[in-house]
């Protein structure tokens, strides 16, 4: 059995606003083996985004334990967390979050600003990454000249450039038409199957979630179900051999 890349135990999260405590996650326990394609589902307000943010080192938990590659994340300081965000995880957001009026190349290279990778290596990594999402003909276009689907593929290339083991995708198809959405899901499946990235997908659509191997369902901050996907949707025939 593959080693767990993520393990949480008794994970609780509350927000405090002017002394009022609002609990969001009520104690979650689960593990994600390396190389798994996991979907986290739930209605809005279920805490699925908060969970993803905690797993992606963007937010901190209130109680419980979170181990990433057997490292206790709660012992890390802000600088170490920044390093983890840079090296260990890549994010894909619903709203793409590209820098405006900036070329595809510069957008994809952005994470390298915060790495030790220098000069000529950067360009090669960026071009490889852009190629892997099929946008090599758009390298020098500005981000605002692209379609929604193309923008999300740029965001995927950006998430890949540091070869992070885990990719988080927060409603990646939420702003896309179904054709572009399918294309994005195809790329995610390919990354998972061919390059072994662990992928954690947050979505509220069952159809999208069924691209994953396993679905965790949350409701009101509690884990409702944790099941393997019986009839997994594959993006297209050529993808699976």
């Amino acid at each position: 059995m593959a080693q767990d890349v993520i393990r949480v135990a008794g994970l609780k999260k509350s927000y405090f606003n002017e002394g009022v405590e609002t609990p969001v996650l009520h104690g979650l326990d689960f593990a994600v083996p390396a190389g798994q394609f996991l979907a986290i589902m739930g209605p809005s307000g279920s805490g699925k985004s908060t969970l993803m943010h905690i797993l992606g080192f963007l937010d901190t938990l209130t109680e419980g334990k979170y181990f990433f590659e057997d490292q206790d994340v709660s012992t890390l300081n802000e600088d170490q967390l920044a390093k983890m965000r840079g090296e260990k995880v890549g994010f894909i957001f619903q709203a793409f979050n590209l820098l405006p009026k900036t070329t595809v190349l510069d957008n994809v290279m952005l994470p390298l600003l915060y790495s030790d990778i220098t000069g000529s290596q950067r360009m090669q990594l960026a071009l490889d990454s852009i190629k892997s999402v099929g946008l090599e003909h758009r390298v020098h276009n500005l981000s605002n000249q692209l379609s929604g689907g193309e923008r999300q593929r740029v965001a995927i290339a950006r998430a890949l450039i540091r070869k992070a083991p885990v990719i988080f995708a927060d409603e990646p198809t939420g702003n896309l038409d179904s054709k572009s959405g399918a294309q994005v899901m195809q790329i995610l499946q390919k990354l998972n199957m061919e390059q072994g990235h662990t992928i954690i997908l947050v979505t509220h659509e069952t159809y999208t979630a069924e691209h994953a191997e396993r679905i965790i369902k949350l409701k009101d901050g509690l884990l409702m179900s944790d099941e393997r996907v019986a009839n997994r949707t594959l993006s297209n025939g050529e993808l699976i051999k």
Partner: protein
Amino acid sequence: MELHDLVQSSWQSLLRTRGRSILTMLGIVIGIAAVILALSIGESATLFILSQISSFGSDKLIIHPGTKALTQLQSSSAFVDDTLTYTDYKRLRREPYVDAITAEVVQSDMVKAGSVNKSISVMGIMPDDLTIMGLSMSDGQFFSDADVEGRTRVAVLGISLADEMFGQGNAVGRSFKLGTLSYKVVGVLKQAGTQFFQNLDDIAYLPATTLLDAYNKKFFNAFIVKTRLPLDEATSRLEIAMREAHNIDNPTGDYSKDDFFIMTQADAIKTVSSITSILQILLSAIAAISLLVGGIGIMNIMFVSVTERISEIGLRKSLGASYQDILRQFLSEATMLTIGGGIIGFLAGSFLAWLAIQIINQYQRGWVFVISWNGALLGFVVSTLIGIIFGYLPARRAARLSPIEALRHE
């Protein structure tokens, strides 16, 4: 994050909001341009004044009527005493260490010669003036001691004035009227340019005694003495001679008892420097205020920029940017704006100063444009500091944002 990355990344950010970046810079541009303009013209003015004083020569002493100012900044008494007489002149001229001496008295009057009818400066001087001021004749002769003694109505003209009155090379032997009296031209000086703020070519020179008579005056404005002695020794000897001549009992050398005072070129330069340093302080104070305003403008815009870019900051943090990375990015954006503004301000200020010097030169020859390198250095340091100081608070606010709150902000 390496410096090169930082600069490039900041540059790209500034370009994305080009219009606003330029407007923000404007405050610094104007501030620095004002500083450079003031300093550059100030340096030109100092240079001009010093060159005028230097043209006087370092081996000369000037004796003024009145009581010596005790400090550099105290002016001599408001009422200039009339104390320097023809008798004093003759007395000093007999002193063995006096190589040359002239007495000067200035008057303005209407000159009439042919079609020329205008107000000019008339100077009463002595024959030694030729050596003291380093003048030479273009035509004819300078007037003699006999002319001084006899108070004859003769005149030597500056070359521009001579040409204007009588046409080129025609002046010697001709007569002209000053006020109601007429004078005969005995000589014309070679071009002498501006010395001590006067255009020497536009003046009519009379024997000093003749001028005193013609205008009912008894006293000279100054004596100028050329000596081969060291100046401090000559000064004390002249003081003794003058006190004897004026019957002043002053064995202790108390200047407040004297009715004359002696200055050298070095004294004049000292006075000028003390005035210009006050001017520099004044200008710097004004410049500091305008730069402060510019700096607050930068801070204001950087705060707006941070607020507008909260989600970008969140994105950068999600991609691995640390507190330091974000802080440096915003600091370097602010600093690049101010340094850019400083460079443009330096160029604009220097250009305006150059233009101003061209215009001044239309009215007074001898001004030279100087680039104020002190000002350039000062401007560079100040604009960098403004960027860092006024950019710091907004940058810190950006860097402190929690990644998730920043990302959620839309």
